[in-house]
């Protein structure tokens, strides 16, 4: 563990030193300076002024005995008798981490009448599933679920725990991590493991502008949440693992929360929230041709949007305009079809994680910002792509 120490100095311009820190964490303190609560250990001061700022290493007070904690556990999220696919993806990653260090993979399954899910999860190569099956656990409530999780950890003592980065997982995992006074790294995109079972957790920070590599070296269990669609689910196979049905005292399952109603969620309707967007531009000759755009969007579970000329023609609702005078979007994927990429349009979508642009003009401006510049005719490419998608779907 390290922190920043300030060496004695004299004859310095204090304001210049204060200005070193991007987070204003260096503050005036009497005649000298001090590091305040704003410090995020970015270490920029160490690089710029090694004569004044140095790294001070501290010996952690109590270190856990890492050999007391074994295995990688996955919290199995489910709804209406269906396991959330993120859980399978996490099992795949847990297996990979566990194999590197010769550890087992565990799952934790909480709910009512969830025995049927036990068999399914075992097919993904899990060594042992711990099942807490009780009427009080029918619906997610924070206090009973935390109590069960706590019971599981005390029983199994896993070294690492992976939880899906869903709204449920991101409510439950921090609660349990705090109960064990251990670390939790949110939304990891890369996970790896060291021989000493420390997990390397890599996650985007500051709105994706930088990546941070994080470890939990002196605490167990190590907690991480991971979003859906980051890792791959393993292939199903003949199960070799077993299930253990665990009991917990009902008085530990009390809650101050009463569920009044549960209803299905309506689909997101605003393009700002959409993860995937297909955009139609003036390359589309007539309104009827939008059909192929809608079909493509359907196949990708995407929303459709338009450039301004199409909005002006009344082909799209004005709320579906992207750009300077429209909405700003930041989807995971945006596919533009016949869009030139004017500055005004690009202003609203440059932040997209992945931009695929289809345009038949090789010097269209959109290609300057596209990750994949597809030079060709949308009237040929899109229908051919749709054909492949349909065949792909029917061959599954």
């Amino acid at each position: 563990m390290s922190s920043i120490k300030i060496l004695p100095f004299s004859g310095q311009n204090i304001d210049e030193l204060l200005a070193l820190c991007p987070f204003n964490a260096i503050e005036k303190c009497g005649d000298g300076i001090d590091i305040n609560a704003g410090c995020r250990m970015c270490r920029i001061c160490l690089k710029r002024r090694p004569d004044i700022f140095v790294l001070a290493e501290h010996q952690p007070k109590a270190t856990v005995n890492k050999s007391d904690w074994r295995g990688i556990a996955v919290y199995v999220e489910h709804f209406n008798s269906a396991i959330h696919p993120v859980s399978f993806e996490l099992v795949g990653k847990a297996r990979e981490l566990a194999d590197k260090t010769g550890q087992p993979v565990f799952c934790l399954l909480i709910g009512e009448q969830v025995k049927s899910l036990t068999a399914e999860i075992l097919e993904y190569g899990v060594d042992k599933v711990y099942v807490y099956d009780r009427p009080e656990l029918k619906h997610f409530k924070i206090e009973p679920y935390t109590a069960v999780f706590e019971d599981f950890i005390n029983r199994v003592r896993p070294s690492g725990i992976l939880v899906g980065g869903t709204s449920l997982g991101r409510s439950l995992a921090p609660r349990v991590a705090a109960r064990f006074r251990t670390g939790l790294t949110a939304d990891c995109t890369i996970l790896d493991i060291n021989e000493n079972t420390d997990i390397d957790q890599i996650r985007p920070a500051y709105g994706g502008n930088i990546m941070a590599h994080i470890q939990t070296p002196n605490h167990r269990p190590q907690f991480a949440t991971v979003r859906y669609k980051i890792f791959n689910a393993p292939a199903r196979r003949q199960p070799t693992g077993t299930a253990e049905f665990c009991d917990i005292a009902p008085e530990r399952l009390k809650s101050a929360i009463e569920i009044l109603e549960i209803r299905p969620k309506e689909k997101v309707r605003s393009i700002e929230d959409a993860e995937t967007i297909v955009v139609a531009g003036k390359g589309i000759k007539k309104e009827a041709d939008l059909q192929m755009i809608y079909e493509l969007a359907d196949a990708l579970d995407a929303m459709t949007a338009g450039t301004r000329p199409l909005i002006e023609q009344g082909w799209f609702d004005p709320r579906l305009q992207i750009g300077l005078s429209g909405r700003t979007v930041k989807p995971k994927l945006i596919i533009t079809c016949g869009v030139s990429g004017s500055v005004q349009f690009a202003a609203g979508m440059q932040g997209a994680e992945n931009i695929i642009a289809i345009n038949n003009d090789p010097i269209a401006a959109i290609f300057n910002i596209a990750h994949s510049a597809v030079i060709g005719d949308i009237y040929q490419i899109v229908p051919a792509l749709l054909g492949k998608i349909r065949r792909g779907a029917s061959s599954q």
Partner: protein
Amino acid sequence: MKIYVCIKQVPDTTKVDIDPETMTLKRGGIDSKINPFDLYAIETAVKLKEAHAATVCAISMGPQQSEAAIRESYMLGVDEGVLLSDRNFAGADVLATSYALSQGILSLGMPDMIICGQQTTDGDTAQVGPEIAEFLDIPHVAWVRRIVDSDETGITVEMDMPETVEVVRISYPCLITVEKGVFQPRLPSFKLKMATRERPIRRLTLADLPDSEPLRYGLKGSPTQVIRVFPPQNSSQRETWNDSPEVLSEKLYSRLNELKFL
């Protein structure tokens, strides 16, 4: 009724960038502001205050400059402000931040309700709220998308779940974290700005907390450690595909599959 709202001053993330040569954060005259998500938490608190004659207290952990965020919250209708500031809090991760905030809250006295934003734009974990609730041993509901009803004993909210919306009733004391869209935040009022100019901001340091063991705060109290920061893999990698429609559609198909959009 007493409501606390947890707010944080954050750097304007659009300006945070990393210097690829030195591998450190570039300093681009970063402006600070209230974490945009916390404006929704403030609005929720102020709406409840308007309905129930409550007092709203903003609490923040951060450097001295965070006073500006508390001042701004006064212009939005917050009645009191507390800043937890001490060099022992520096370098705190989620656990140490939540612990400090929970200790601050304990030293001020338990409120009926604590409201947090959904997440911060810098830490970006959405974990601080639930961890505060754990340290205070009170129930929480995270991802609240709508306040349905509230009275003197509890509050009914809509909780955003992966597949469903759950309407739940939770009794006080409790903590909720609210999503964007729970209410439309109001704009700072000039009248309130003038009226609250002299309003004090209470400062709490480590010595003021019930648990003043420095090892439980800041960097020393943080189980997670940042090993290093680095720029994201160049997602701006550009490739140009110039081929027959057949080949192009095939390439697109495999790319979309690979990226798991199909």
